[in-house]
């Protein structure tokens, strides 16, 4: 890992990420999208984020990829509080406290 490599990665990621964020906002703008496309897009958040975290929760690097009951339970608490209270911050505090206390006790 040289300095140059790191800078190349930062530049490529910065540009690539910006372009992914700009893609539809910039190019489609105020043109109408068909109803079926809009119907799919309504599920963007729930389609992406659960899949992003699932491997991190089930096979965490920190345990060498071993399933960890505390992490699974903390994830369940975070989700449940979030769905029940409809509030991200309460969810993160509940899940964080549950994990922190569990981690300290175990």
């Amino acid at each position, binding site marked *: *890992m040289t*300095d140059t490599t*790191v*800078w190349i*990665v*930062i530049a*490529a*990621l*910065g540009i690539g*990420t910006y372009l*992914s*964020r*700009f*893609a*539809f*906002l*910039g190019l*489609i*703008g105020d043109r109408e*999208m068909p109803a079926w496309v809009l*119907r*799919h*897009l*309504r*599920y*963007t*958040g*729930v*389609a*992406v*984020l*659960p*899949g*992003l*975290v*699932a*491997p*991190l*929760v*089930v096979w*965490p*690097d*920190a345990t060498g990829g071993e399933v960890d009951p505390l992490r699974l339970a903390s*994830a369940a608490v*975070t*989700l449940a*509080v*979030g*769905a*029940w*209270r409809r*509030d*991200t*911050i309460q*969810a*993160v505090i509940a*899940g*964080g406290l549950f*994990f922190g206390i569990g*981690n300290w006790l175990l």
Partner: protein
Amino acid sequence: MAKSPFGKGVAHGLPFIVIMVPFGVLFGVLATEAGLSLAQVMAFSSLVIAGASQFTAVQLLTDGVPTAIVILSALAVNLRMAMYSAALTPHLGPAPLWQRCLIAYILVDQVYALAQSAYDERPTWTVADKAAYLGGVAVPVFPAWVGATLAGAVLGARIPESWSLDFVLPLAFLALVGPMLKSRAHVTAALVSVTGALVLSWMPWNLGLIVAAILAMAAGAEVERRA
């Protein structure tokens, strides 16, 4: 002030400091420990502004993976941003180009999640109101992310491994998902997303996540259509 869409955005974004700070500190510490210079760590957080992909990139760089693969893998994690961009286009598409250019820069997961739920709840907002709200959300969220990265990099406090700070990353995203589970269609999409991502985790460059996300969107849309 509190009544304007911009003020609402600031107020709704403010509590997210609780999430952005540990997340940013963690990145600052890990990236510095991996051998990145302060300038590089800060460039990551202020140019890429996508925590999950930054962790992926630093991890792969440390593993000595070829540069092109590092870039492709991390970009695949960020392809979800294109989906966010598409999802917000019906709301923000008519905004002036310069606003859309700025919005694209700050469209991180937390900003997307807040904006989407606010737009769903307030259908009477104009395009200008919606853009103002999104800008308001970014006011606390973005500096918290960059500032926390700096703190993590400078203090470089060796965080004891027993604290298991790595859990901050999944926690930050899980907390966004709960409030999104509004209907049977949303829950179905989430289940397909989890199953797909786990089953397809063998795919190279994190492409399994993208395939899982597309399947999950189709599943959600189908449940909605049949309802």
